[in-house]
């Protein structure tokens, strides 16, 4: 589904990704881990050509991404959802509008948009915050808006850069469940960068470890499943006391 061949990306003199080749199979959930600064975000950004590589080629589906026309590239991008490490929400749009915009870009009929936006916001537990602006949200709430936005358009590929970095364990479980659901229901290919081993281990089928801009190894794992959780504060107490 996604294939990087000998991709190199430099920022000035610093090489962020060096001659990397990686194949992500259609319909898999692929983890990407590595130390801070290893090049994980850059890898994701190269996959939808937000970052143009200095050399190498990127295949998404059957065709090389860099050779496509602008229009084809745009169409390809519409089928690739992306959750940014820093959310990148539009601060002057409400929660609802932030999610709706990805549907508008995909020319989803107006009357379907509203239902779809509500549905996505319900997934991430924000259906009652539709009219707030990002500045009025907590960190985790912002992150959930970004997730809803990426899911709204039912993409074929989902690039997730630390999607649960600001989320408490319960919300994390819920988000992971949503991601696994759409993966199972729609066959979405998911690439997930996370520094939380629990997250990676719970849903990934293969994991690539990056080190200083190169791929150290890619290993298949048995996903451990998403831990059950509920929203109650008792859970926190229980967990604190359990395995201390």
């Amino acid at each position, binding site marked *: 589904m996604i294939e990087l061949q000998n991709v190199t990306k430099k920022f000035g003199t610093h090489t962020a990704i060096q001659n990397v080749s990686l194949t992500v199979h259609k319909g898999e959930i692929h983890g990407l881990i590595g130390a801070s600064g290893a090049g994980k975000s850059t890898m994701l950004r190269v996959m939808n050509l937000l970052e143009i590589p200095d050399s190498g080629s990127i295949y998404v589906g059957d065709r090389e991404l860099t050779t496509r026309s602008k229009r084809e*590239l745009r169409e390809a*991008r519409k089928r690739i959802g992306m959750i940014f490490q820093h959310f*990148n929400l539009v601060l*002057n749009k409400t929660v609802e509008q932030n999610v709706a915009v990805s549907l508008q870009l995909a020319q989803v009929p107006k009357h379907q948009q509203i239902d779809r936006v509500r549905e996505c916001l319900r997934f991430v537990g924000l259906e009652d915050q539709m009219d707030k602006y990002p500045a009025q949200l907590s960190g985790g709430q912002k992150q959930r808006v970004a997730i809803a936005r990426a899911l709204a358009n039912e993409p074929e590929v989902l690039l997730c850069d630390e999607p649960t970095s600001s989320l408490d364990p319960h919300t994390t479980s819920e988000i992971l469940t949503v991601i696994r659901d759409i993966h199972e229901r729609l066959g979405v290919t998911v690439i997930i960068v996370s520094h939380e081993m629990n997250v990676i281990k719970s849903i990934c089928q293969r994991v690539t470890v990056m080190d200083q801009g190169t791929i150290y190894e890619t290993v298949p794992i048995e996903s451990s499943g998403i831990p059950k959780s509920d929203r109650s504060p008792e859970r926190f107490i229980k967990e604190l006391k359990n395995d201390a």
Partner: protein
Amino acid sequence: MPDILLRYQAEIWQAIGETFIMVGVSILAAILVGLPVGTLLYLCRKGNLLENRFVFSSLNLLVNIIRSFPFLLLVVFLIPFTRLIMGTAIGTAAATVPLSIIAFAHYSRLVEQSLLEIPKGVIDAAVSMGASVKEVVFKFLLVESRSGLVVGLTMSTISFISYSTIMGVVGGGGVGDFAIRYGYQQFQTDLMLYVIVIMVILVQMIQFIGMTIARKIDKR
């Protein structure tokens, strides 16, 4: 109300009307031409979405040429053009032509500046969703910079009032010209001061309205 104001009531109202026409048309020109030109300047700049050296340099030069002209000479220089499209080069309607041209050049720079302040992450988000350049502009750039654009338009509008002052040269009239003509050239200092007070009130109102709107629509 002071006697002298009463005496010149009719003329002053007419002058206010003329100012409204001149400034109103300038605002229209700023929005209809300045906004697109400023956006293009931003988009075509090195490293940006529509990077295009030729378009950028041309527009940049055009705007600079307009802004380089001593305004009086711009008015004079444009007379043949004004005559062509308005049928005459004198009067309030004719005055709107050079004013519109300076207006778009003036505002386009402020638009460019506002757009330069938008965090790059927003554009990343737009591009990653497959937005076309048009969609990036309308659904992201203009939304995110809207309060800056309103602050800029407020500043521009106040400048337009100041520019319209010079339009007496070609019979454009307006409050500024009234103040110069009656107050300054004819030494009716009190009348001049009253008229300036009117202008200050006008400017205060514009500033207040502009900044209030800007604050209201700024959700960042």
